[in-house]
């Protein structure tokens, strides 16, 4: 029997205080990349629920016409208008109830950056909407603001020169009050990562924070010689924001070179804490000044390309009898940290993948033990792979269940390091790392529900191939995601039961959202399998399958009259 929704809501304040509840939940709109600036990817809409989800049907479909790469961006919905960006920076404003085009904008074909660098890859993870503007990053590393009403360009500013850094910014910008903050990629290259804040009104720079501190700055002493110059650490995804603490939270990328550390770590360095700061860390920055308030390094001397660049989920929960403002953060290894978000204090951790041989464990104060590092001149089979126990796609969090929902992949890789020297803007991974399927398995991924407070896995649903699409949780106790075969499906948030599935025609490498217009709840999902990078890489693991390309948005709702 389904518990009436009002009863559950009435019980909630005992579990989660109203403030975090309000800050993390979306309603009619889907205003930010992560739903809200707390990055829950959770909608309070419950018109579609566990009992009627079986009736979901497409309400409208939108083909972007941009088939250069997959549609992987998270749409933004504000006041019944959806803002969607395709891989080659075509931006659309759509009537979110009907899918008709209100305006569209095409970014002119940009000049290419360094041949064979990160700046060659084509993808875009989303726009940000604020201050009457639609803001997005481009392949040639500009940040562009369009007029939200007309789609006309308002301002455009260069974040960096892709012909020199080989980098660009293709993740959704984060809106923080009167500013828009962007990171960038290039941390697997000879490059020094940074976050940059621009004023939404004028496009002028407000502040820049370098992940790798320069000479004279605290943390620079954790770098050997001049290695800080090309130390990587690029914060290539989207952060979070707590308005009450006025702190911006961001995950930073791996140190460069990835698989070989002799040029960046002094011999005899204690690797239990703070090596090559502030790479592979979660950082908290003052939103107004960009000054570092605290950091927590998850992978000191990251030798596995595990990054820590992923989404940061903010919530308030009872921990050992005390209400705490916490954040939950998974890095590419699947190791997930629970920290006090006021101070950065380590509270607990859990490890999502079943196969994890790069460490033997984590101490009670959050230190890695039993590191199995890549070694020059050897090939080691290490798990998880650089593709990630989870890729960059986001988890979801439901305040109704208190659980996190995450896809987890069980893929390993053979890492063979080399000792190449850096060349600015060129790849500086220093190793080969072909992905390998682990032996004696018939499934290579699973969707899991985790309780971040007890570090317990609540349920797990296996899947044959890999899962590289973001999760969506709703107040209808549903969890949505898609698979590479094209199925978009809904699980029961409480027990993982598969309640509904729809074949959308192309693989899922993007995200789904929920919103409402005139009282009707919609669930929108991007489709199209990624042809390069991780998406392209896993295709080689499953040669018998065709994970289909495309660039189509499919929007579902309950049929009129059946609600």
């Amino acid at each position: 029997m389904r518990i009436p929704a009002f009863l559950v809501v009435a019980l909630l304040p005992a579990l989660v205080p109203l403030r975090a509840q309000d800050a993390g939940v979306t309603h009619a709109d889907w205003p930010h990349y992560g739903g809200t600036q707390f990055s829950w990817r959770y909608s309070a809409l419950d018109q579609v629920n566990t009992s009627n989800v079986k009736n979901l049907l497409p309400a409208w479909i939108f083909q972007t016409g941009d088939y250069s790469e997959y549609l992987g961006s998270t749409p933004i919905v504000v006041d019944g208008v959806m803002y969607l960006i395709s891989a080659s920076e075509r931006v659309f404003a759509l009537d979110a109830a009907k899918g008709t085009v209100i305006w569209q904008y095409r970014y002119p074909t940009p000049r290419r950056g360094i041949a064979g660098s990160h700046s060659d890859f084509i993808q875009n993870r989303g726009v940000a909407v604020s201050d009457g503007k639609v803001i997005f990053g481009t392949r040639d590393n500009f940040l562009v603001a369009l007029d939200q009403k007309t789609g006309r360009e308002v301002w455009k500013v260069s974040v960096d020169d892709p012909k020199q850094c080989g980098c660009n910014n293709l993740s959704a910008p984060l809106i923080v009050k009167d500013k828009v903050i962007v990171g960038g990629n290039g941390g697997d290259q000879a490059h020094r990562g940074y976050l940059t804040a621009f004023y939404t009104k004028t496009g002028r720079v407000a502040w820049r924070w370098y992940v790798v501190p320069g000479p004279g700055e605290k943390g620079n002493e954790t770098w050997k010689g001049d290695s800080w110059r090309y130390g990587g650490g690029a914060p290539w995804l989207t952060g979070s924001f707590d308005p009450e603490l006025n702190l911006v939270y961001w995950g930073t990328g791996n140190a460069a070179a990835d698989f070989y550390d002799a040029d960046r770590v002094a011999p005899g360095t204690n690797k239990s804490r703070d090596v090559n700061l502030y790479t592979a860390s979660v950082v908290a920055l003052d939103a107004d000044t960009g000054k570092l308030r605290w950091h927590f390094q998850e992978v000191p001397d990251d030798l596995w390309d595990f990054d820590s660049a992923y989404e940061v989920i903010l919530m308030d929960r009872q921990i050992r009898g005390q209400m705490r403002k916490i954040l939950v953060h998974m890095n590419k290894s699947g190791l997930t940290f629970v920290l006090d978000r006021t101070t950065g204090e380590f509270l607990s951790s859990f490890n999502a993948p079943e196969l994890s041989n790069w460490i033997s464990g984590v101490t009670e104060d959050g230190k890695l033990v039993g590191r199995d590092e890549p070694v020059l001149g050897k090939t080691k089979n290490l798990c998880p792979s650089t593709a990630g126990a989870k890729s960059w796609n986001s988890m979801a969090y439901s305040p109704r269940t208190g659980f996190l929902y995450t896809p987890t992949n069980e893929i390993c890789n053979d890492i063979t390091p080399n000792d190449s020297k850096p060349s600015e803007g060129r790849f500086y991974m220093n190793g080969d790392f072909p992905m390998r399927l682990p032996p004696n398995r018939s499934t290579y991924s699973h969707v899991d529900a985790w309780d971040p407070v007890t570090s317990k896995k609540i349920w797990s649903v296996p899947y044959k191939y890999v899962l590289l699409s973001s999760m969506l949780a709703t107040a209808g106790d549903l969890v949505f995601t898609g698979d590479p075969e094209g199925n978009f499906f809904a699980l029961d948030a409480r027990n993982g039961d598969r309640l509904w599935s729809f074949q959308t025609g192309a693989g899922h490498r993007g995200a789904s959202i929920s919103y409402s217009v005139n009282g009707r709840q919609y669930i929108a999902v991007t489709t199209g399998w990624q042809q390069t990078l991780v998406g392209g890489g896993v295709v080689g693991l499953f040669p018998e399958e065709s994970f289909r390309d495309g660039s189509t948005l499919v929007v579902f709702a309950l049929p009129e009259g059946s609600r």
Partner: protein
Amino acid sequence: MKILLFLVIGTVANAQSLPEVLKQGESVFNKSCATGYCHGARGTTGGAPRLAARGFDQNFINNTVTRGVQSTAMPAFGTALSRADLTAVVAYVASLNGVANPAIVSSGPAGPPAVRLSAEDARGRDLFSDSVRGFGRCSTCHEIAGIGIPVATPIAKVPADAAALKALATPQVSTATVGSESMPALMVSKKADAVIFYDLTSAPPVLRTETPASVQTGDGSSWRHSSVIGAYNDAELAAILSYLRVTVKP
């Protein structure tokens, strides 16, 4: 005479044996193509298509490597690699596809010519786009030899010294007023429906698009070039000017 000399050099370069060329090709491949996010070592795996044992012939490989594949991540290496490197990497990929005796004689257009710089000029080049100086570097607004953001029109005349650089007259900088705010502006275009200009208030400049009704423009500005080159000392500016003198074509 010049042509003859070029041919002689070409012959010497191609005097490498096949194993030497393939070794060079593998080295180029490892730096530019093999990274695991692309084609992987020996073209066997990665995020981009497998290249080994695909039955590609050398002509196809040469065309693809030289021109790239439009609207994909595959760049055109024809202008990014030297001719010798291009030939070597094509031969190497051909060898991965079972071509027993790949051609190792260069053909087609050469890559960018190598410019020999003195130590001082090379230092000037590095300073011009020094990423440690953030937005304070010259390449924030100037593009030279393919590096930098072309905000300013191409540099046509190089100032004699650091003092002349600081005193540089900038009559093209005007003043734009949007609402109640005035700002130094570099006008790009004025059309019936849009006024497009760079706002030079802070670095990096911001390209603004305004409707003609929303912006007023006036000649002259208090903006000075000397106010944006403070990231360099005089010796560094001298090195940059030295580099510009050998690079800028009047």
